[in-house]
């Protein structure tokens, strides 16, 4: 590595680079995802040509945006080295409480726009509250994120049933119309969410907040030693994830025109799947937002496509499971082929110097 080093060193560098390029092509999860996506779309289209029609593309984009928003929040959590199992329940609870409030406002004849805006804020706040409870359990009571958010998954799902008695809340046709109209194939909710996802992705990769999130997931001790307030940062991530789940609750309210206790059921699993399929490490510290977005898109195509070719939607979870398996296998391959590349390199590089003058 010092400048004075001569031919053998350079040769080994070239060797290493060649091997790592091979690894990169083999194990670039996003590249693989794009190929999978094309194959899936072609397959569903060959079975039912209506799969590529303007109405279905619009549907697909709207479905995708809901999952994408949830997955983005989940990704922040996973990159920080945590996990949030409560987002599905947060979707349900916030959608229901938002729906109650919006029903009251509609009955009081508030203008529709005001109702939807206030409803959005309420959903976000309810979701953020769920996240804040997670944060308290994790940073103050020192529970493992898995346990703390499992508590909220269970409690939230229970509360959703308690609040509603199992029946959807309200029937808001304006909401349905709003979510079905838009620009070209993009519905209004899809446009808003896609812009949000782009901003949140940029923020994760280019802001100080995002940098700290990666650092904590990578080595929280080093982050603390560097003067980062790790507890506070982790707490804020769970609040963010909860707030985004709350907004996803509003999204489901718009699609269904009501707050349903079944909204967001199992959504945490799909969101985690999107993040993992997108190439993020479940151990934290690594991942690309573009991968998560692609992962969410692939899962949406699978879910919608299965319906399109008349396969029981109950099979959906099985297919998602298969995708998680292949994503995990790909990650394992990447790790082991990285190891393989190291082994292939001549010994001189593996004993690289510390950095002389």
């Amino acid at each position, binding site marked *: *590595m*010092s*400048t004075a080093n001569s031919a053998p060193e350079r040769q080994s*560098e070239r060797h290493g*680079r060649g091997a790592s390029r091979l690894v990169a092509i083999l194990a670039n999860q996003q590249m693989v995802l794009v190929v999978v996506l094309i194959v899936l779309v072609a397959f569903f289209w060959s079975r039912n040509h209506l799969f590529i029609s303007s109405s279905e593309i619009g549907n697909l984009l709207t479905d995708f945006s809901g999952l994408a928003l949830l997955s983005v929040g989940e990704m922040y959590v996973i990159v920080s080295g945590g996990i949030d199992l409560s987002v599905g329940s947060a979707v349900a609870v916030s959608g229901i409480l938002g729906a109650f409030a919006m029903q009251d406002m509609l009955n009081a004849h508030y203008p529709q726009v005001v109702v939807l805006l206030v409803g959005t804020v309420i959903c976000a706040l309810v979701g953020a509250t769920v996240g804040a409870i997670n944060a308290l359990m994790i940073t103050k009571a020192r529970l493992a994120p898995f346990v703390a958010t499992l508590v909220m998954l269970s409690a939230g799902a229970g509360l959703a049933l308690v609040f509603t008695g199992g029946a959807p809340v309200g029937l808001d046709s304006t909401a349905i119309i709003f979510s079905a109209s838009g620009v070209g194939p993009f519905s209004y909710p899809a446009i808003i969410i896609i812009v949000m996802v782009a901003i949140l992705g940029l*923020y994760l990769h*280019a*802001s*100080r*907040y995002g*940098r700290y999130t*990666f*650092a904590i*997931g*990578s*080595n929280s*001790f*080093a*982050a603390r*030693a*560097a*003067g*980062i307030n790790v507890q506070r940062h982790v707490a804020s991530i769970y609040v963010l994830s909860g707030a985004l789940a709350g907004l996803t609750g509003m999204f489901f309210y718009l699609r269904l025109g009501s707050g349903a206790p079944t909204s967001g059921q199992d959504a945490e699993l799909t969101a985690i799947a999107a993040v993992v399929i997108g190439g993020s490490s479940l151990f934290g*510290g*690594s991942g690309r937002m573009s991968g998560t977005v692609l992962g969410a898109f692939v899962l949406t195509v699978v879910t919608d496509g299965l319906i399109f070719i008349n396969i029981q939607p109950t099979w959906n979870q099985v297919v998602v499971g298969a995708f998680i398996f292949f994503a995990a296998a790909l990650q394992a391959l990447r790790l082991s082929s990285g190891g393989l590349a190291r082994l292939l390199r001549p010994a001189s590089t*593996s*004993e*690289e*110097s*510390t*950095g*002389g*003058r």
Partner: protein
Amino acid sequence: MADERVPALEVRGINKYYGGVHALSDVSFRAYAGEIVGLVGDNGAGKSTLIKVISGAHEPDTGEIYVDGQRHHWRSPLEAIEAGIETLYQDSGLAPDLTIGSNVFLGREKMRRGLLGRLGFVDQRAMEREALEDLKKVGISVPLSKRTVAELSGGQRQAVAIGRAISWARKVILLDEPTNNLGARQAIEVLDVMRSAREQGLAVIFISHTLPHVLEVTDRIVVMRLGRVVRDAPTSGFTAENLLATITGLDELRPPPTPTA
């Protein structure tokens, strides 16, 4: 003696109790700018406790800390950092998934100018560039082809960690076992980096069990035993044998009667 100069770091009469254990008793020593001070002692001698007190991780029960003659009383590592003291803990390490630039600037990111900066966006390109310059200044060159710290060898990682500490330190740098787990060649390069930190006018405090390294690189050695400073003398006055004897306490035992011829 250099006693007329103001020491970069001076600790006076530090006492620290853990429950009934007197971990540090009346510890005093000085480190001047442009000097490498070795801090040695057996396990349990109090080195690590002393480091934690100086770096702000623990508060002493009594005693005073001076930086450039100014008395400080800090309650957190951040306050020690702000006073110009950087610490490389034995096992803190780096964030392996982050780039070298992100690691060097971790906690002190360079922000973009204008609105983007105010919105919290970092200037990644500037950080990568300046990190490599900063590292080069202390004699560390890192291959440009390596993006994240995870791609570096163990020795290179340690070099980046030390380089990070040195490039941020304004007055004092505490290195706790920086040559641990390194091969012989990498360890020697770490010693070189310490020398270049000395040339830059930092006070370097080097904690190590590897006595040959201590004898090779330090100007002065402070020996601790059972929470006390038992010897504080120029390195030239030590040999491997009497240093070991001072550390273990053998020097205080009466030498065995030499058989008369």
